[in-house]
């Protein structure tokens, strides 16, 4: 079996250049590649285009890279949890492309599945449709949307093996599997890295073929945005 293991996050991201197009997994702060983001921050790689459903919060997730002015452009569906983001956007320091969430997910999936374009009804009749091909199928109007691919995809899984196979946990799966398949180079960080053969092949969510590098992450904070509880 091909061994995909690298030592740590710093090694995994060592060849990401300034100006790279990145996909970064996660929904809110759930399932984000915390170690990879920390390594990007440390190395201070600039002019990044980040394709990620959200932009983190002011002091965590992609918010850390925003604050450090490392991001040139965000491609996201919802960015409402971040004041620094708002400041940079209004000051014209940041480009933003807002995309309906399902369209974003499918564009990434298409990128990983070798499908250059598809039709979706989301956004028809709205400003999202501007400049896009419109086509009618069975009496309903659809927009043509194109695939998204990345130079590097940074994803986070619960368990992974040395062959790069990944298993996600809970709703931390979200955008990670599609992003894993849509990166020219995909870097996976996992909470638990095991030898090939230990994960049940029936339970693999992302097959190792999509993963270029894998490392065991550390010190996961897993910050919660909205801690909501029922009284005991």
């Amino acid at each position, binding site marked *: 079996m091909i061994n995909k293991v690298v030592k740590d996050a710093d090694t995994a991201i060592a060849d990401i250049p300034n100006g790279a197009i990145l996909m970064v997994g996660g*929904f*809110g*702060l*759930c*399932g984000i590649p915390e170690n990879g983001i920390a390594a990007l921050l440390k190395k201070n790689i600039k002019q990044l285009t980040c394709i990620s*459903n959200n932009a983190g919060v002011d002091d965590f997730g992609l918010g850390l890279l925003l604050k450090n002015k490392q991001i040139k452009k965000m491609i*996201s*569906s*919802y*960015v*409402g*949890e971040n004041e620094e983001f*708002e400041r940079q*956007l*209004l000051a014209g320091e940041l480009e*933003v492309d*807002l995309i*309906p*969430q*399902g*369209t974003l*997910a*499918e564009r*990434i*999936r298409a990128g990983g599945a070798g499908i250059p374009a598809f039709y*979706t*009804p*989301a*956004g*028809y*009749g*709205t*400003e*999202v449709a501007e400049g896009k091909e419109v086509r009618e199928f069975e009496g309903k109007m659809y927009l043509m949307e194109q695939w998204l691919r990345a130079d590097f995809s940074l994803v986070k899984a*619960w368990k992974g093996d040395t062959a790069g196979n990944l298993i996600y*946990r*809970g*709703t*931390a*799966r*979200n*955008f*990670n*599997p*599609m992003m894993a398949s849509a990166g020219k180079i995909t870097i996976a960080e996992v909470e638990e890295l095991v030898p090939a053969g230990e994960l049940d092949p029936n339970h693999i*969510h992302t097959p190792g073929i999509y993963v270029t590098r894998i490392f065991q992450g550390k010190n996961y904070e*897993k*910050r*919660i*945005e*909205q*801690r*909501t*509880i*029922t009284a*005991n």
Partner: protein
Amino acid sequence: MALDKFGIAKRIAQEVRDGFYVNLGIGIPTLVANYIPANINVVLQSENGLLGIGPFPKDSDVDPDLINAGKQTVTMLDGSALFSSAESFGMIRSGKIQLTILGAMEVSENGDIANWKIPGKMVKGMGGAMDLVASAKNIIVAMQHKNKAGESKLLKKCTLPITGLHCVKKIVTELAVLDVVPGGGFKLLERAPGVSVEEIKNSTEGKLIIESDNIPEMKL
């Protein structure tokens, strides 16, 4: 008296039927889950990849890997299922969700909805709203009848950027339950307890259709 947000949620819960898969938006729609009758089986979908949303966890059971689309911590139920965002919107686009409940800033008399952007103000993004409204067969909007400036949110034509066209089927506000009828117009079905038809008329800018002299009060 006009309903509070819990009253609106309670009334909308009456629209949920046994066997429905339901997507609840953020805000008042999330509250609807608390009022779904115990004698029917309903599965709630969260577009970040969960079917079968359970109640909020006990303090000791909070799991950062388990959140809803509002980023709140949740639990799973017996029979819950997890999946990716692509699969999640696949089930939404292909019409597997029987009922979608969401908030709005404006609804027009032909069923257009605006709920994602106020030009000149910070734009947060549409999230999954455009995908949901473009594909859902049955959309109920939960909202206040008027905005903070006292202007009607039930309009002839939306003034804010549109989220989707001709998609809203029913609206529940603090004053009334209204259907959006195929030819255009808000058909008044029910009044909030103690709210007069006159008050609803005065609060509705779009075409209001009143087919009866005796519009019933909501039963909550």
